[in-house]
């Protein structure tokens, strides 16, 4: 390889290479740790050049961008050696069904799988089993997506009556205070028939079982370890409507 290659790190970091040279050097970086290290450091220098000309973004951009991300799908993560990536075949079928519940939730549901497959797994077997349980519900032919908003948070559920299970995710809720936990409740049509459906953590997909007579899901905040019956008003309530 020409020794000249290594002198391209600075222009590369400044985006000052013409397209073909840029592509060639990018390939070279994959094989040259020294150049990769140089580029990494020089890019941080370029950050300072950029910060020196920072200007607040114009009014309205924030709302437009935040609105846009609700309907834009995220890319699948790039395959990383050593990290397992799995494609789930049923994706297309439930994707169409979920679209009926709103583009925003369809995106969230699609990302759900991404979270499970790419997160660093401490408890590998536990995670794998959990991921399989989630996938099973999402892939069920009668999977239906529902969500409820309230108090800045959201209760999102993908429900399969056939399986008698729902994948539930709490969004937008803060971490519960120390010694407290969120608790999910499953309520029948008859008032008073209410049973705990588990202790979900914020933003973590959670598989809950649903008896055939359950009509509503609700979330309250309870002491750590959960309560037998809710001790306060529901933070969020999700009627399971047509499912």
């Amino acid at each position, binding site marked *: 390889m020409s020794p000249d290659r290594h002198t391209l790190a600075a222009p590369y970091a400044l985006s000052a290479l013409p397209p073909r040279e840029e592509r060639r050097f990018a390939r070279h970086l994959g094989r040259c740790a020294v150049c990769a290290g140089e580029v990494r450091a020089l890019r941080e220098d370029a950050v*300072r*050049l950029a910060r020196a000309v920072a200007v607040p973004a114009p009014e309205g951009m924030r709302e437009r961008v935040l609105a846009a*991300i609700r309907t834009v799908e995220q*890319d699948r993560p790039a395959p990383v050696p050593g990290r397992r990536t799995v494609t789930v075949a049923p994706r297309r079928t439930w994707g169409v069904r979920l679209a009926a519940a709103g583009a925003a939730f369809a995106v969230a549901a699609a990302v759900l799988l*991404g979270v499970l497959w790419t997160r660093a797994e401490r408890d590998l077997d536990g995670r794998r089993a959990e991921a399989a349980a989630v996938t099973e519900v999402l892939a069920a032919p009668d999977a239906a997506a529902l969500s409820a908003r309230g108090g800045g948070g959201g209760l999102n559920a993908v429900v399969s009556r056939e399986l008698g299970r729902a994948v539930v995710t709490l969004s937008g809720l803060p971490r519960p205070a120390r010694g407290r936990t969120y608790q999910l409740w499953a309520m029948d049509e008859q008032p008073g028939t209410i049973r705990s459906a588990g202790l979900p953590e914020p933003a973590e997909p959670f598989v809950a079982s649903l008896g055939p007579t359950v009509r509503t899901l609700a979330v309250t905040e309870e002491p750590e370890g959960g309560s037998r019956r809710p001790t306060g008003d529901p933070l969020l309530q999700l009627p399971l409507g047509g499912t």
Partner: protein
Amino acid sequence: MAHDLEGKLLTLVAEGDQGAFEELYGLVSGPVYGLVRRVLRDPAQSEEVAQEVLLELWRGAPRFDAAKGSGMAWTLTLAHRRAVDRVRSARAAREREERAGRRAEGPAFDQVVETVEGRLEREWVRRCLDALTELQRQSVTLAYYEGFTYREVARRLSLPLGTVKTRMRDGLLRMRACLDGGAA
């Protein structure tokens, strides 16, 4: 990276965390917009490109690799690339117009509001850039702020390619030493 807040947020964004994205937006929207604006000059185009970049942060967050550099570096590299691509095509179009004998419209210039925090950073960088040799500074700023390739820079400064590449590297390293040395 010890304090890579943007990187930590990007990792959360990659998992679909919209709250994390909002926080990230707050941290990077100024640097992104300002950089794009500095390269493109035209406010309308700058807004368009900056928006695309910010949206791409959401879309492409799963590709961010903290091992390869900070979140801010990843973000600004993306922003800079897009801005540079745009300014180069605009420039090429203008040159075609000029060659065809038509007078090309220049880029719109207007006042850009400075923020107080930006001013400090701006001052430091300006002083450290001033401490470089003329050729080091020009090589860096013509490339970074004006979007010229190193070959175009060489042509403009009437220098051999090798010299321009070296000046770029030396300029950045000296700026780094100056900023790190000067930071209290």
